[in-house]
């Protein structure tokens, strides 16, 4: 065996012992580097006789090629080993917490309100917001509730002066809207309302949403058709509505609207107190006087109006038991409404 063969053997043995790519590199340099043994051999060629040089050169080059091939295969092996080691050392607990800032949540009333607006704006309702401090005219008189009308007792009103008050109903917005707009229109008036009532089931401030449609030939059947659509979208695809007589000064006829209980499908359960129905809103055909008060000809146009408590809808939708929860602002309550 000549020197070159020995050198290949020696290099292969050392490369095999090299554990890391760094060590392998050093071995490679020892043979193939600028000061390596193979390089030295090549350099020694100048000491040879000229006729021997081509053969020697050929041999050394062959050795170098063999060594390079050998190192590259070792390099690949070492890299694979090293990658494996790296991967196994880098295992993480994927169940550890993510890095992010938690979002907040919109208030359930805002969520419900947006959902309602979404349903009705799809049916062509625009949204109008009237003032929260109103005068007597818009809150009562124009709504066919003159002073001394029994309906004024139905609502305990917060007064600022004899004339100004905190609106007791979003219906007040109806009048302001109608004064500005010519029918036909559909409008929705959501907002805060106030009544001097404070007990387990009443809050002195709550939210209502009023809907008003005025057009030619609008009937009670249209009212129920629209409310059916609302109930199906808001509660369950099988929801139905039921009308029963009631009284509001600004509608005639007036109805209470019950929605079939989504929890039991109308069979009767604790939520609907066994009746299969849940009282959800009040509605009716707009009283002719109200239309007249707003300069709308009641012989040409008819309309219907409906009003609901947003808290009530939210309570039904989310199963919230206490009206207080909405204004206590406990973050443990509010944060459940993230999405």
């Amino acid at each position: 065996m000549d020197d070159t063969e020995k050198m290949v053997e020696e290099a292969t043995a050392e490369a095999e012992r090299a554990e890391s790519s760094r060590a392998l590199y050093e071995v490679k340099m020892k043979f193939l580097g600028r000061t390596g043994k193979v390089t030295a051999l090549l350099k020694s060629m100048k000491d040879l006789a000229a006729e021997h040089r081509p053969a020697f050169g050929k041999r050394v080059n062959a050795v170098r090629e063999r060594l390079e091939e050998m190192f590259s295969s070792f390099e690949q092996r070492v890299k694979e080993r090293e990658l494996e080691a790296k991967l196994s050392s880098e295992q993480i607990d994927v169940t550890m917490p993510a890095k992010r800032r938690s979002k907040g949540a919109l208030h359930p009333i805002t969520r419900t309100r947006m959902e309602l607006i979404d349903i009705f704006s799809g049916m062509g309702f625009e949204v109008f917001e009237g003032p929260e401090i109103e005068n007597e005219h818009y809150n009562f008189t124009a709504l066919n509730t003159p002073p001394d009308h029994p309906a004024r007792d139905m609502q305990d009103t917060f007064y600022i002066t004899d004339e100004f008050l905190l609106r007791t109903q979003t219906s007040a917005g109806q009048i302001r809207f109608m004064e500005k707009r010519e029918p036909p229109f559909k409008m929705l008036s959501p907002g805060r309302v106030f009544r001097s009532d404070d007990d387990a089931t009443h809050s002195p401030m709550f939210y209502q949403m009023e809907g008003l449609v005025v057009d030619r030939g609008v009937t009670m059947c249209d009212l129920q058709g629209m409310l059916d659509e609302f109930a199906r979208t808001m509660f369950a695809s099988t929801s139905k509505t039921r009308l029963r007589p009631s009284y509001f000064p600004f509608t005639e006829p007036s109805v209470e609207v019950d929605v079939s209980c989504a929890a039991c499908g109308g069979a009767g359960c604790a939520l609907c107190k066994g009746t299969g129905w849940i009282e959800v809103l009040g509605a009716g055909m707009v009283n002719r006087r109200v239309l007249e008060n707003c300069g709308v000809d009641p012989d040409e146009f008819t309309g219907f109006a409906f009003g609901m408590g947003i808290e009530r809808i939210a309570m039904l939708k989310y199963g919230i038991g206490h009206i207080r929860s909405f204004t206590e602002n406990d973050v443990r309550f509010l944060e459940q409404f993230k999405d």
Partner: protein
Amino acid sequence: MKVPFSWLKEYVEIDISARELEEKLFSCGFEVEELIDLGKDVENVVVGRIEACEKHPDADRLTVCTVDCGELGKRQIVTAATNVFAGARVPVALDGATVKHEGGVQKIKTGKLRGVVSEGMFCSGEELGINDDFYEGAEVNGILILDMGTPLGVDIRPIVGIDDYIFDIAVTANRPDCQSIYGMAREVAAVLKKPLKRLVETDFHPVSTDVKFSVEVKEPKLCPLYVGSYVKDVKIGVSPRWMRRRLALMGLRSVNNVVDITNYVLLEVGQPMHAFDRKFLHGDKIVVRRAEEGEKIVTLDEKEFTLHPDNLLICDGERPVALAGIMGGLNSEIKGDTTEVFLEAAVFARDSVRKTSRALGQRSDSSARFEKGVYEIFPWMAMTRALILMEELGCGTPTKCTAVGNLNSPSEYGGIAPKMIETTYEKIDGLLGIHVPKEEVYDILKRLGFGVTDMGASFSVSVPLERGDIDGWPDLAEEVIRMYGYEHIRPTFLENASVTHGGLTPAQKQELHFKETLVGEGYSEACGYSFYSEKDLDLLRLPADAPERRAIRIKNPLGEDLSVMRTILAPTMLQNVVRNVRRGNDSGRLFELANVYIADMLPLEMLPEERKHVSIALWGEGDFFDLKGAVEAVGEAFGLRFGYERGERPFLHPGISARIKLGEREVGWIGELHPAIAEGLALERRVCLCELDYAAVSAKFRKGISFTPVPKFPDVQRDLAVVVDEGVTCAELEACILHACKAAKRAELFDVYRDARLGAGKKSVALHITFAPDPAADKPISPETADGFFNKIVSNLRRCLGAELR
């Protein structure tokens, strides 16, 4: 309105159960809030006759009785009662029976009392839920002793009159005519399609008298009608059992026959009445007038009131004898020796009665009834009914002396002209959207007491006098549909209506986006009352002349805590934080977007400005700069550059508080809660608050997004560290840098370093500066160009702020 089932049956033949009637009433607009089964708690109690009583062998106080329960056989019952005797008929609660006990229900079982078997229990009136008005002797201390003829072994409930139901009906405000038994009976008859018996079947027989009463109504608006009638030969006594029981069913105690008749008529007809003892009415004269300031009256319940001219009085020739519509005076009360009575049935304005009743804190069944509204037909009906009862019960002799005040109608009872309405069947159908057969319309209105004249396509009705709520054809449509049934309505979807465009206005959309931006920053939306207390402003240490003190006050608040309309949202937010911390929520982030109310002038003479504010808070985790991040997030979302200047507020930490500005305009404030206030509220962890004038901020929202082309070449960054005086602010450095070089797009602080070696009162500030190439440039920013920018910046910093490069 409470209505006993048995009483309704007096006027309408009812052949359905109470439950079925409840449903019928519900369908025609009368929700039964509660259907009270009077005998529900009394089960398996029968009549027994005591055959023998013996002393208990081992207990002196107990008696062992053998009782005969007729067909049910004999029982041995041990009792502690002392009023039992052999031969007495008593209620016997058998084994397994239930009786009333201390507001609940007690179950009776066979057991041993001191070793002797007792197969049940004798019942007192209380255990059956009755008093003397139901059955004589029900209130004795001991067992109820029944009449001798009472049959043995039968259910006790019909015997003592508790086999009955009470309907507690919600009557809507437009139906004062249904605030009476007879009024409800009219509805029941209509819905059951049964005839309604007349209230007055017979007539009374007034006798002549020399007595003459005069009535002078000085306030015709407050007393639209006053009817009085003189009754002689009055014999005060006890009312008959049937009347006492009915009063008892309605929760009224029997007083004497005259007073009972007035109460009975109130319940039956819905007209409050009052009886005066004639001998105390000076001058046989009634004057209805306003009280004089400071005038006094003592009412029947012996309370003295000092009056005001808002209070209406009934006076005799000399002095007040009743608080109109509320309560009679003690000075003219019916007593045991009364022999002549002057009966009053009048209409008093509901508002006047309500105001007086509230102002004096004096309520009665009468005032409650007047507050609901009384029509002019009622006094006539009531007076007739009362006089018939007086005669029937042998309580007194009606006379021809009837005195009327403020009579608007041409003649008395029945003479009031009914309202007439003319309309078409088509109009009714048009409003309802369905076709109601003509015969149905006719029949329904007839049943409800309307006089109907069919005229082919149209018809006219005369409105019953007790239906003051009906004043147009839509009311008739309602009468028709509530009786015809809402189930006939077929849902349609605006078949004839126009297409309208719906949705939120741009401002409403922005508001939602604003909220969602804060939600994205980790803040949850809160919702607070629109009112708070003056004390909340004290808590914020706001001086007396602070603009926030100019708040709108509620005249009739629920309490001081909720008496002032908000001018600033921070107090509510602070309460939210305190409540959360008390509940163990150590950290959190909240915001609220709501109106504050700003009065131009107080008291209000025009509608105040309602201005949206947003309040943002964090506590527990995070500091001033975290909260500032929320404001910046809003700035980013809406294209705003907020400026911050040190600015103190009495409730903020003086060193950690700022004014927030948009351009030159101040639009809010931000800071850490003053440590002294925090300590006072036991808030141990840091609380930061911010409030923005949303109206002012939203006015500056970017109008849509405008695109500028992206430069072809990348930005170049340089870091800069300079030593400046402690007082130099980050904002000043930033402004100076951006001012020095147009290409400098951003200067962002990333480190502040203080060291003695820098010198006293000095700090080192490090910033990243980003240079952006001109979008139109055809080559990148070279290192040499960047160096040039950098040097320009350094020299500008040195010149303006005395900054030295580190």
